[in-house]
């Protein structure tokens, strides 16, 4: 049994109780993914599995045999910060930074959902082929990631700058 994490093939744990989150942090020592509530309420542990954002705290690692996981450690491209990471810096998209890896992975997955045309609760026309990522859409689509410092305005501004034009276009 194996899993790809940030491009490397890794052995899955023998104990089925190990969550994907604990596997990443404790077994692979990838400490970028954060443990917030550990019960699916905060989004701090968000990672991408085959490009889709999921909560690694509610995932048993063993269920992800054969899948490909991307964590915050693999977000930079060729050593340079991902454009979204640069935008978070420019727009003050964090204070303490604890929720940031989850926010970033979540936003990457969110943009992919929007490109696919996945509707949200605030999408007015369900038959529309494309999603216009205005502020209401971004707020709703990022509502699974809490920020207890309250950096939401900066977070949304950073995501809007990075993706809004691209997805709407």
């Amino acid at each position: 049994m194996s899993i790809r994490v940030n491009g490397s093939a890794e052995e899955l744990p023998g104990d089925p109780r190990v969550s994907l989150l604990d596997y990443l942090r404790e077994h692979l020592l990838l400490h970028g993914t954060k443990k917030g509530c550990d019960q699916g309420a905060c989004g701090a542990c968000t990672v991408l599995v085959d490009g889709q954002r999921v909560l690694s705290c509610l995932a048993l690692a063993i269920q992800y045999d054969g899948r490909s996981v991307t964590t915050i450690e693999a977000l930079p491209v060729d050593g340079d910060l991902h454009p979204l990471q640069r935008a978070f810096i420019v727009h003050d998209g964090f204070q303490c930074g604890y929720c940031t890896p989850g926010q970033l992975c979540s936003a990457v997955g969110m943009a992919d959902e929007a490109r696919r045309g996945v509707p949200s609760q605030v999408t007015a026309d369900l038959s529309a082929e494309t999603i216009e990522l205005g502020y209401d859409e971004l707020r709703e689509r990022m509502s699974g990631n809490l920020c207890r410092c309250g950096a939401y305005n900066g977070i949304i501004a950073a995501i809007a700058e990075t993706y809004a034009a691209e997805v709407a276009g």
Partner: protein
Amino acid sequence: MIPFSYARAVDTADALRLGATSGARYLGGGTNLVDLMRETIERPGMLVDVTGLSDTIEERRDGGLLIGAATRNTAVAEHRAVRTRYPVLTRAIVAGASPQIRNMATVGGNILQRTRCAYFYDQDGSRCNKRAPGQGCDAIDGFNRSHAILGASSACVATHPSDMCVALAALGAIVHLRGAGGERTVPLTDLHRVPGDHPEVETVLEPGELITAVELPALPVAARSTYRKVRDRASYAFALVSVAAALELEGDANIRGPITGGTVKDVRLALGGVATKPWRAWRAEEALAGRPATRESFRAAAEAELADASPLRENGFKIDLATRTIVAVLGELTGGLA
């Protein structure tokens, strides 16, 4: 977490064979079961992973859809036929949980999720008949603002938490099951039990029986349908009240345009957040049949549905809130007439 073994089912027969093991539970996306296992409220000896089984959405010749039980919630919500022919289902799904959870959660798991009653979760400090049969219920005289006003008993007042199921109840969805005795189908509205004296028995599923698919029957009225969820914050919270509704009026030629009058030809209505199971509002539907599409008849129908509501100390507001939300949603479906 208490130790357990894990097996991945390769097909339905394999799942049933593994699921017959004593202490086995089927595992979908894990978003509810894994959390409850961590709390040791659920203590399966074995998990049978059924996420590798059918996750396709099949168009039926009669115009309906057959949704494999392992289909992820997001995949259902974004499916074009669901969005255009059963918009209430897309609206209900995207009103629930968070995008990350919807990417993980399966249709079968959503149907079988457990209540979020805080007393059910509070294993060390509270009594709960659902968690420990016969123990008593601390919610009935406790903090019960979020609890049920319909379908409750003196043993349990916990609500069913699903949004998706409320839409499925309104749509008359049929749940396909397979077990030791073969295949059978059960209407979604008959799958969940009201608690009565045995709140620990939540569905009519037999031991080891597996949900294999959910069938949406062809339903023209569903093209004009929606879902409204009322809660304490704008997103990512469970419902205080939710309403799934579909409405067709007599002489309604243009189903997408506004309607300026007429009588109710067909209506489907179901409620969430107020009942111990996904609540099909049969009485309200009956009261609406053939009636003029006015605010007055919508209100009378809502009041008929809630006539038997049993409020607890803190949740009496749900009667008014549900009544008003029903009227508002039906009004929205008439194009703003009401």
